[in-house]
């Protein structure tokens, strides 16, 4: 007799048939269900939040204590460097560089000066816009200026509508009913001056008393150096040929700024000079770029009038056609040269505020001129920013501390002592600005009295970012990889559960959150990931820049659509009502964008991503949430993995030509030894005899005299040291790196940056390049040696900090 599974029902029945839910179990199930979050869980969340905040606040930071003044320089040193520092009461004398105009006072405001100036430079009253009458003839009004088109007096120069419509010409012109009447087509001949019609050109302005006007002809947009659209004309026709690329307004004494085209017109550089009413040059044209400076005429609601021409001269053009700019010349509208300066700050438009930074000599100190071109504050600062809210940041050289920045008031008095290593270029806004107290400091906010009013949140956020930045790249990558691994493992563990029945929507809910989280993580990591040597991104960075941008944007958008779809699907389960679902779908992308916008990380891509997320979520929310009888089909099982593989293959195909891996900086060490050291001497003498490049290349790279310079340094090695930088490069890709050429690039940072100071001390940097070829997942050291000047370095820690900052900048990819 065989066993039969059919007997199992009977056999099991003997054991379990009588089994029912116990009364206590039934009671547990049918009792009214209440959920009360335990007090403990609330306390737990609160404790966790406190912990995170405390951690953020206590992150390491080398910010100096401001109260004891360790970061501010000694005032003795300041006085030694800037002897002319004005006190609040004493006014500085003008320097020789300034024109000999006596300045009445340096105090602001100077309303009388401005009013007098604008009166003297008033525009001509006889300037008229040229109009065309009903027959197409150009004319100008005799009695009314250009701005009075619609005043009652100006309208009296035209026929009224009744007069026009009752005349034969008017009846013919307005034959069709509903035609709109335009008075300017019907001037009274006794009130206007008719101008000749000039073939192929249009009248712009006409000056009645000067008897000259400006005409322009059409020039194709790519006219280039031959674009000469402007000419002067009078009642008898053209007075000059089409010579000018620009003509500005004529002034009371009959002069106008005009330009001839030049080969560098693309850069706004033309040959500018001043012409009289006959088109003759009053002053020789000079190559340069002309700014017109309009100023208020001093009254409360006065008009802005053309006050100065500021010409940034361009004495030369380099081989590639880029202009090389020279001194600034400032003219009054009649072409009289008023002021010459080596440089006028372009940070903001010149003369947009009371005082404008300038310097008299190239590479000389900076000072300020006022709107009347008097020297308000003589040049004595290493740098000078524009005024904002009554204060301007100036740089002052100090003993041993490099250049420090402080703030001066309108009289040149130091309002906030120089103590900052960096300041915000844009100055004060709503009473605050941003400064750094140290090279390695975060941005602090100060008010106009110099008090530190930084919010705790901003400090904590910046410290967090700084802390993350300070981690070596491989550690950051490791953390990122660990996070990804955790998320993946968690996701896999969850997804391994039952995929159908009641828990399917819940699973989707978790997946939806995980998808959103991973999108956020990936999105946040994108700027660094795009430059990281992770294999996946390497595939993308192999693309040319356009293709790379499109590929990254495409992948992000696809990810966003997929994540949004899953999220929207899961929203079906959590939100039973349509409007709550819609709210969730709209609010989530908004929150995502907000989370990136708050710390200032949002870009234009955010809007696209948010829209795609919303669309994906809307599409996802149309799927039924309870699909417990649906059969998992081919699509869900195979289509997604297939798509992923396909995308990978496409990316791979794009970059197949670029199989080399790329190494990234993962650490740096430095050491300092005197040049006297026999090993160093031997190294450099070998370098001199057997240079690493060919003679031509060495000469091209480091100058013809590199050998002489090296010899000079080796002959007098006292006070010199050799700084050795060992930069560790790691190949994180699966492919070998073949002879990657790396070199040190000096960051163009603020003067106060330690790398800049280090750069200033460098005497020889012949070894600023190296070849490395690390195997996959291996590291290789590239060593760079510099001869630096150690004289005057009393504080060894400073150099340590400088090199440390340099190495850190290297790892951040700035150098």
């Amino acid at each position, binding site marked *: 007799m065989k066993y039969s*599974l*059919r007997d*199992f029902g009977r056999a099991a029945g003997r054991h379990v048939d009588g089994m029912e*839910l116990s009364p206590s179990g039934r009671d547990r199930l*049918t009792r009214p269900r209440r959920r009360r979050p335990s007090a403990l869980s609330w306390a737990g969340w609160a404790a966790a939040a406190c912990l995170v905040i405390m951690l953020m606040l206590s992150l390491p930071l080398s910010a100096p204590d401001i109260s004891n003044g360790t970061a501010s320089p000694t005032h003795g040193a300041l006085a030694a460097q800037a002897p002319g520092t004005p006190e609040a009461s004493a006014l500085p004398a003008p320097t020789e560089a300034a024109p000999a105009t006596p300045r009445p006072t340096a105090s602001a405001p100077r309303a009388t000066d401005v009013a007098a100036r604008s009166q003297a430079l008033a525009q001509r009253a006889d300037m008229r816009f040229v109009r065309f009458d009903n027959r197409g003839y150009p004319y100008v009004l005799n009695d009314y200026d250009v701005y009075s088109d619609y005043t009652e007096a100006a309208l009296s120069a035209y026929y009224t509508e009744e007069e026009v419509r009752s005349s034969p010409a008017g009846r013919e012109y307005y034959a069709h009913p509903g035609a709109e009447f335009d008075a300017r087509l019907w001037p009274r001949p006794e009130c206007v001056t008719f101008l000749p019609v000039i073939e192929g050109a249009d009248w712009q302005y006409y000056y009645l008393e000067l008897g000259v006007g400006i005409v322009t002809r059409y020039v194709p947009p790519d006219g280039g150096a031959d674009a000469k659209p402007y000419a002067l004309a009078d009642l008898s026709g053209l007075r000059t040929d089409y010579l000018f690329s620009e003509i500005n307004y004529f002034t009371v004494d009959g002069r106008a700024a005009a330009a001839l085209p030049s080969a560098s017109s693309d850069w706004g550089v033309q040959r500018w000079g001043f012409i009289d009413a006959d088109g003759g040059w009053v002053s020789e044209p000079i190559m340069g770029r002309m700014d017109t400076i309009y100023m208020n005429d001093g009254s409360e609601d006065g008009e802005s009038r053309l006050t100065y021409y500021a010409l940034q001269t361009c004495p030369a053009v380099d081989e590639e056609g880029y202009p090389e700019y020279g001194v600034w010349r400032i003219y009054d509208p009649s072409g009289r040269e008023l002021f010459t300066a080596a440089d006028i700050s372009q940070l903001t438009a010149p003369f947009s505020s009371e005082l404008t930074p300038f310097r008299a000599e190239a590479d000389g100190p900076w000072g300020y001129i006022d709107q009347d071109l008097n020297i308000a504050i003589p040049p004595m600062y290493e740098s000078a920013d524009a005024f904002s809210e009554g204060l301007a940041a100036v740089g002052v050289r100090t003993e041993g501390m490099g250049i420090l920045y402080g703030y001066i008031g309108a009289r040149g008095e130091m309002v906030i002592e120089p103590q900052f290593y960096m300041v915000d270029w844009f100055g004060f806004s709503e009473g605050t600005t941003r400064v750094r107290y140290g090279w390695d400091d975060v941005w602090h906010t100060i008010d106009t009295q110099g008090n530190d009013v930084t919010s705790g949140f901003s400090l904590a956020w910046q410290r967090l970012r700084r802390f993350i930045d300070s981690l070596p790249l491989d550690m950051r990558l490791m953390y990122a990889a660990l996070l990804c691994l955790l998320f993946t493992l968690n996701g896999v563990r969850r997804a391994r559960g039952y995929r159908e*029945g*009641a828990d399917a929507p819940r699973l989707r809910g978790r997946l939806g959150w995980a998808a959103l989280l991973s999108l956020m993580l990936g999105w946040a990591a994108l700027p660094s990931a795009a430059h990281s040597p992770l294999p996946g991104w390497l595939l993308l960075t192999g693309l040319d820049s356009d293709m790379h941008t499109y590929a990254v944007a495409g992948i992000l958008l696809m990810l966003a659509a997929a994540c949004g779809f899953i999220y929207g699907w899961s929203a079906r389960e959590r939100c039973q009502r349509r409007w709550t679902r819609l709210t969730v779908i709209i609010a989530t992308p908004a929150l995502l964008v907000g989370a990136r916008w708050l710390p200032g990380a949002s870009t234009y891509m955010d809007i696209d991503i948010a829209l795609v997320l919303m669309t994906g979520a809307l599409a996802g929310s149309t799927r039924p949430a309870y699909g417990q*009888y649906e059969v998992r089909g081919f699509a869900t099982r195979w289509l997604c993995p297939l798509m992923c593989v396909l995308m990978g293959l496409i990316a791979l195909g794009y970059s197949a030509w670029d199989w080399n891996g790329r190494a990234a900086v993962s650490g740096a060490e430095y050491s300092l030894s005197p040049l006297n050291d026999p090993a160093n001497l031997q190294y450099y003498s070998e370098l001199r005899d057997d240079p690493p490049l060919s003679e031509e290349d060495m000469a091209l790279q480091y100058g013809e005299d590199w050998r002489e310079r090296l010899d000079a340094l080796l002959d007098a090695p006292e006070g010199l040291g050799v700084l050795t930088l060992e930069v560790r490069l790691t190949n994180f890709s699966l492919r070998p790196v073949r002879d990657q050429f790396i070199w040190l690039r000096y960051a163009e940072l603020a003067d106060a940056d330690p790398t800049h100071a280090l750069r200033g001390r460098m005497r020889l940097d012949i070894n600023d390049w190296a070849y490395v070829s690390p195997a996959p997942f291996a590291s290789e050291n590239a060593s760079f040696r510099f001869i630096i000047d150690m004289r005057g370095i009393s504080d060894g820690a400073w150099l340590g900090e400088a090199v440390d900052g340099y190495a850190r900048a290297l790892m951040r990819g700035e150098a």
Partner: protein
Amino acid sequence: MLFTFTLTPAHAQELDIEALIDAHAGAVKRCAYLCLRDERLAEDICQEVFLRLWQSPPRVREGEHLRAWLLRVTINACRDYLRTPWRRRVSTARDEALTAAPAPGPLPEEQALAFERDEALYRAVMALPLKLREPIILHYYFDYSQQETARMLSIGDGTLRSRLTRARMRLRAMLGEEVDT
């Protein structure tokens, strides 16, 4: 006491949960027992299953469909339970099911023999891994057809047949005799 609120999803409000418990709780508990071999655990699974019914009920709520849905959720919950690390570390399952059923008094020899054979078969089936036991429970104890069983376990018909075959081969090794379907 600050945050006391009653959670009743809108879609669960029209469910007569008590009637459903009376109608189906026994079957759910028996299924869970056959899966986990522990009555106390089976009670817990019951709680879990009806909680899920209440939180997210299926669209189709007619008797037989609902019963199939409940059994499927039960099996899923049992699988999930067996998978949790907690259970692997602190297992209190007592494998009560492997103890013999009480003999229904003195029997004629032939019936006593049949009873012994049933008991042996029951013990052998209960010793199978859950993956192979699930189809036997649904098909032979709850009398679902092979197609229904396959659908409830979310597997194909072929997979179901191969699982049953593998179960029979295991049973043959345990019982020392051929086992019919």
